[in-house]
């Protein structure tokens, strides 16, 4: 445990090494929030409800999606692919007294918690400036199940990140795949808008993937759009997705280890 705390401490120090860059990277979400806030405000000038959302619900969705996104969709696992390709760096981990996945989970957790703190600060300031009141859950179970779903979503994203990075065992051209996966994932997870906005057939396809379980369903639970039974059903499916992705990741990782060649120093 102590060694993972040390990893967390070093990761945090590294994160703050270039403070200006870090601050800017955390603040980039502001412009997206401004765009989405004014866009939806404009849209709701003519309509009271749209896509089964009220204005207050959609604004809450936009802000909450930004907060949850900075926790769930923040990961350092993309660096694994680089390490697999950079002469012998990955090999050095095999000699250290730490679990490789546990090491990256610790790094991920530091990234997530740091980003979460910043995004909460940023959104709080924005909510005050724009004089926005968010819609809060009326039922206690909504808050609890929301937190549970966020935790599972983080684990799903962690293993998806590793799964994509495992391609680094076979090819150096990983960055393009990571770029594509992140873009598909962000839209299908509902980062920019709830997937209810999309055409029904596209929604049906997206709901067959694990992506809506990362943001869309957790926020739907928070907004009270799902009943207790529906929320539990969603969380159960999310756990099944987590198990499936974990098994696939482990299987491909083990296959990759067999072909890994440590070249370089």
């Amino acid at each position, binding site marked *: 445990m102590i060694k993972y705390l040390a990893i967390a401490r070093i990761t945090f120090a590294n994160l703050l090494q*270039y403070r*200006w*860059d870090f601050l*800017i*990277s955390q603040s*980039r979400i502001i*412009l*997206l929030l*401004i*765009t989405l806030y*004014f*866009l939806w*405000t*404009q*849209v709701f000038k*003519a*309509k009271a409800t*749209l*896509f089964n959302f009220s204005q207050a619900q959609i604004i809450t969705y936009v802000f909450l999606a930004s907060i949850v996104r900075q926790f769930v969709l923040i990961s350092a696992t993309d660096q694994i692919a680089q390490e697999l390709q950079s002469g012998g760096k990955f090999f050095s981990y095999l000699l250290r007294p730490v679990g490789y996945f546990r090491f990256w989970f610790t790094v991920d957790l530091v990234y997530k918690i740091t980003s979460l703190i910043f995004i909460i600060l940023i959104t709080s300031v924005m909510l005050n400036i724009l004089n926005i009141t968010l819609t809060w859950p009326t039922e206690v179970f909504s808050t609890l199940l929301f937190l549970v779903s966020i935790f599972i979503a983080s684990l799903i994203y962690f293993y998806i990140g590793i799964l994509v990075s495992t391609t680094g065992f076979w*090819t*150096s*051209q990983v*960055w*393009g*795949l990571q*770029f*594509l996966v*992140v*873009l*598909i994932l962000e*839209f299908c997870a509902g980062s*920019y*808008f709830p997937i209810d*906005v*999309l*055409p029904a057939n*596209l929604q049906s396809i997206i709901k067959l993937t694990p992506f809506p379980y990362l943001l869309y369903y957790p926020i739907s639970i928070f907004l009270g759009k799902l009943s207790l039974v529906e929320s539990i059903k969603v969380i159960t499916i999310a756990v099944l997705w987590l198990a499936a992705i974990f098994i696939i990741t482990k299987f491909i990782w083990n296959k990759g280890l067999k072909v890994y060649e440590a070249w370089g120093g």
Partner: protein
Amino acid sequence: MRFREYYIESRLHSTFLISGKLVRFSFFLIFIIALLTKTENLAGFGLYQTILFFMTFNLIDITSQFLFRGAYSIQWNINKGQFDLSLTQPINVLFRMAFDIIDLLDLATLLPVLAVLGFVIARLSSQVTFSGFLLYLLLCLNALLIAMAIHIFIISFSILTQEISSEIWIYRDLMNMGRFPIDIYSKSVQMVLTFLLPIAVMVTFPTKVLLGVLSWQWIMLSFFIGAIFIFLSLKFWKFALKNYSSVSS
């Protein structure tokens, strides 16, 4: 000018990158169509008009990325001494740094944008005049000039600070605000996006002139803002060069 050799050699990588850009483009297009199908108008603009704003945004954004990708590697050029080497060579250093890399992948993503743009303009043909189309092209060129000025500011700032990543991404995020007509924003945000960070001049104004809803005063002001930005960026470039001290080994 160098092409991005790496991307051309790595076909799988290039395919994924182009696919990613097309996915982003498609999702936003579907979003706008779905939204406007329900609401019928956005800040007074109909479906095809709103798509026209989005397509003009893509046209300017992708073309400027295609042309000025060199600005993204300025930090690397400075740190590795490439910038110092360029200073000693008989070529305009600013030209070398700004246009050093041409990103062909952006050109590939420009093709579907041009196709949809042509389709939308054809659908809006009753509102589009020949003079309006000519002014649209001129204002798009003006937008590229402003984009070049902003990239010169960023390159110059990097020369002074030896950093790049933050500034270029702020510009990209600001540019993304132009996906929709600036009429959706509050008056104060509109003012900032017109005079201080002229995203509106770059994206919204060309579209409005094509739709015939931009007055000649705003058209003249757009060219004036473009000229001012180029002038100031070149001044800042010279200032940065004078204060540059090599950091590479």
